[in-house]
C-alpha cells in the first residue's frame, strides 16, 4: 500500500508544481514540457534546424548561385530533385537551371544536398508549414517558389551566413588575383554533367 | 583467435574437412556446417555460444550464407570473436542445413535470408516469408531481381479494376493486352549507370 501512496504523493507534488512553472518556450528552464498556444506563440527556431531546401540568390532572382551542375540531384538519397540546364539561343548550355523542382512529398530533410553543393546555392530552410490542397502537384515546388534572397538566409542562420560570406569573399579574391596574374584566361569549359 | 588457428583446430578435430580462409572467414561445405557449429559451441576451447548474425550475399555466380559467432562466456572467450563462417551454394539449388536445432536465434534470421535471397534452410521448423507477403514472387535482394513497375497496368489489374467498376482508359487497356499477348510482365527499368 505504501508504494501506491508514495506514487500518488509524487503525482500530487507534480500537479501542484505545474501551476508554478515558468511559461517559457525552453524545456530546460521549465523543467520539461509546457503548452504553447501554437499559431500565436511559437518556439524559437534553432539555427541548425533543417526542413526543406531552398535556392539562394544574391540580389535579384535572375542571378541565382545555382549553376545546374546536378550534384545535389545525384547525391539526394530519395532522388527528389529534378534539374534541367538552361540553354541560350544558340543551344549552348548556360550556367543556370531552366527547371529546378523539388518534390516535398519525397524529400526527407536530410540536408545532404546542402552539404554536397560546391557553390553554396542550396540550403535547408526553417519553413515547416508546408501544405497544399492536394497531395501531388501542389507539393512539387518549382524554381520560383524555391528562390529566396541571401538576406533570408542571413536572418535564419546568421552564423553560417557569416562563415559562407567570408568563404565566398576569399574565393572571389583568389579568382581576381589569378585573373590579374594571367591576363588572358583560357575559355572556361562548361562543367561536365 | 585468428582464423588460421581456428582452421587448424577444426581440421584436427574433423579429419578430411575442407576449409578455406577468405577475408578472415572460414569457408566450408554446407554438409559440414552443423557439426562445425555444434563443435564451436560446445568445445571448452571456443565456447562460441552466441550466434550474432546470419545473412546471405548474392555474388552472382553463387549465393553465400554468412554466420558471425561470438562467445558470451567471460573473457578471454568473449573477446576472441568473431569467428565468421561462410557457406556457398549454387544459385539454382540453394540448400543449406538450418542452424535452428543448435541456435534458436537462427529462426527469424534464416527466415529473413530465405525471404530476401531465396536460400532454403533445410530443417527449419517454419520456413516462410517473414517480411514480404505470402504469394510474393521472386527474391528482392538477389542482384537479378527487378521490381514490378507499379505505374503500368497489367491485364490482371485491368480485369480487377473493371470488375470493381473502374473505367480503364482504352490506351492502358491496349497496352496491357499487348503485354499479355507478348507474355511479358511490367518490370521496372533499372536506372542505367549514366542516370545515377
Amino acid at each position: 500500500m505504501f508504494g501506491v501512496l508514495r506514487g500518488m504523493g509524487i503525482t500530487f507534488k507534480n500537479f501542484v508544481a505545474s501551476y508554478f512553472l515558468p511559461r517559457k518556450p525552453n524545456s530546460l528552464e521549465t523543467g520539461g514540457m509546457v503548452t504553447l498556444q501554437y499559431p500565436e506563440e511559437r518556439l524559437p527556431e534553432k539555427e541548425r534546424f533543417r526542413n526543406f531546401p531552398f535556392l539562394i540568390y544574391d540580389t535579384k532572382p535572375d542571378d541565382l548561385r545555382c549553376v545546374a551542375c546536378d550534384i545535389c540531384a545525384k547525391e539526394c538519397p530519395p532522388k527528389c530533385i529534378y534539374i534541367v540546364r538552361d540553354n541560350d539561343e544558340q543551344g549552348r548550355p548556360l550556367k543556370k537551371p531552366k527547371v529546378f523542382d523539388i518534390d516535398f512529398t519525397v524529400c526527407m530533410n536530410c540536408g545532404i544536398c546542402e552539404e554536397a553543393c560546391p557553390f553554396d546555392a542550396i540550403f535547408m530552410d526553417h519553413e515547416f508549414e508546408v501544405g497544399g490542397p492536394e497531395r501531388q502537384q501542389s507539393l512539387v515546388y518549382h524554381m520560383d517558389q524555391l528562390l529566396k534572397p541571401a538576406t533570408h538566409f542571413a536572418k535564419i542562420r546568421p552564423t553560417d551566413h557569416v562563415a559562407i560570406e567570408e568563404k565566398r569573399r576569399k574565393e572571389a579574391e583568389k579568382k581576381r588575383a589569378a585573373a590579374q596574374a594571367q591576363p588572358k584566361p583560357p575559355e572556361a569549359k562548361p562543367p561536365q554533367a | 583467435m585468428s582464423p588460421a588457428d581456428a582452421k587448424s583446430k577444426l581440421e584436427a578435430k574433423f579429419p578430411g574437412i575442407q576449409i578455406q580462409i577468405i577475408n578472415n572467414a572460414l569457408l566450408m561445405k554446407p554438409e559440414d556446417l552443423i557439426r562445425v557449429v555444434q563443435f564451436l559451441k560446445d568445445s571448452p576451447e571456443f565456447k562460441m555460444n552466441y550466434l550474432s548474425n546470419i545473412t546471405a550475399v548474392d555474388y552472382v555466380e553463387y549465393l553465400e550464407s554468412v554466420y558471425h559467432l561470438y562467445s558470451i562466456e567471460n573473457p578471454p572467450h568473449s573477446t576472441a570473436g568473431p569467428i565468421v563462417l561462410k557457406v556457398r551454394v549454387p544459385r539454382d539449388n540453394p540448400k543449406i542445413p538450418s542452424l535452428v536445432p543448435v541456435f534458436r536465434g537462427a529462426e527469424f534470421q534464416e527466415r529473413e535470408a530465405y525471404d530476401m535471397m531465396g536460400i532454403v534452410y533445410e530443417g527449419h521448423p517454419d520456413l516462410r516469408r517473414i517480411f514480404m507477403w505470402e504469394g510474393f514472387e521472386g527474391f528482392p535482394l538477389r542482384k537479378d531481381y527487378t521490381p514490378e513497375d507499379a505505374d503500368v497496368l497489367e491485364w490482371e489489374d485491368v480485369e480487377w479494376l473493371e470488375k470493381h467498376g473502374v473505367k480503364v482508359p482504352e490506351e492502358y487497356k491496349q497496352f496491357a493486352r499487348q503485354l499479355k499477348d507478348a507474355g511479358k510482365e511490367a518490370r521496372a527499368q533499372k536506372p542505367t549507370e549514366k542516370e545515377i
Partner: protein
Amino acid sequence: MIDEPVLHDTDTLEVNLGPQHPSTHGVFRMNVKLEGETIVSLKPIMGYLHRNHEQIAENMSYLGSMPYTDRLDYFNSMSNNFGYALAVEKLANIEVPERAQYIRVIMAELTRLVNHVSVIGFLLNDLGAFFTPILYAFREREKILDIFEEIAGSRMMCNYLRFGGLKLDLPPSVLDRIKKIVQGFPKFLDEFEGLLTKNEILCMRCQNVGILPYDLAVSASITGPMARASGVNYDIRKIDGYSIYNRLKFRVPLGKVGDVYDRYMIRILEMRQSVWILEQVLKEIPEGPIINPKMAAFAKAPRNFKPPKGEAYGRVEAPKGELGFYLVSDGTPQPWRYHVRAPSFINLTVLEDLCIGHKVADAIIILGSIDIVLGEVDH
C-alpha cells in the same frame, strides 16, 4: 439449492492482436490462440512497415544510407548512425579524431537515456497507468531532444555522424546545457523510481511474468537489456570497447529472474550507469578537429568515397541490443551488400516462449518489455 455446474465444450479461440492496435507499438500483428484467456500459441507476423532498407542502401552511395539508418529505430537515430559509421570505418580503415569520439559517446548515451526512459513510460502505458509516467518520461526526453535539435538540426532524424567524424562541431554553450541535464537526471530518476519501483500494482503485474531463462536467452541470440535482465553478462561496450568505451568506467547491471520487472529495473540501472559515463566524458572532452581530414574531403562529393574491396561487420550496443551492420564492398561507390542486424527484430524470437501460459493482458506487457520499434523490426 445450487445447480450442478454445466460443463461446456470449449474451443481454442484465435485472435489477431494488431496490426492496428495501440498496444503493439506500431503495425505489428500477433496471431494468438487462446484457451479461455490463456495463451496457448502466439505467432508474430511482421512486415507491414517493410521497405527493403537493405536494397535501398545497395542502390545508394555509402553516405546516402546514413539518413536512412535514422529511420530504422527512430527513437535512437544517433546510435544507428554510430553503428553504421563504425562499420564503414572498419571497412575503409578510417581513424576518428579524439573529440569526435567523445561527442559520439555523449550522443550515444543521451540516446540511451531517451530510449530507456520512454520505453518504461510505454511499458507503464501498456500496464494501464495511462500517460502519467510517460509524460514524466517525456519531460526529460524533451530536454534531450532539444539538445539534439540544436546540435544536429533535427529532433529525431539526426543524421549527425559522418564516416571519420561528425557533420558539425557542437554549437557554443551546448555542453553546459548537457551538463545541466546530466546533473538533473539522477534526481528525476529518483522521482521516477519513487513513482514506480515499489508500486504494488506494478510489482504484481510484472514480477514472475514472462520469464526468460538464461539458456534460452543465450541460445536465441537475445541482446541488450533484455538479455542482461536474464543474467547474461554481455555488453558490447565492455566486450569490444569500441570508440572510447574501453577508457570509461561503468558497470553492467544484471538481473536474476529475467521477468518483466527485471527488464524494467535493468533499464533504470542502465540509465544510472549512462549518467555516470556522461559525467566522465563531459569532464574530459578535449578540443580538436571533429572529422578526419581525409574524410572531410568527401563531404562535397560522397560518391567519390569508394572503400576498398572487402567486408566488415560493425556492431554497437544500441539501447535495444546489438545493432550490427554487415557491409560488403566491391570497390564501387555503392555497397554490394548491406545487412542490418536489427536487435528488436531478433529479440522477438522468444516472444512466443515468454507468452505461453500467460493471459492476454500479460502478452501486451511482455511485448512492451521487449522494447520493439517497428521501423527496425521490419527494416
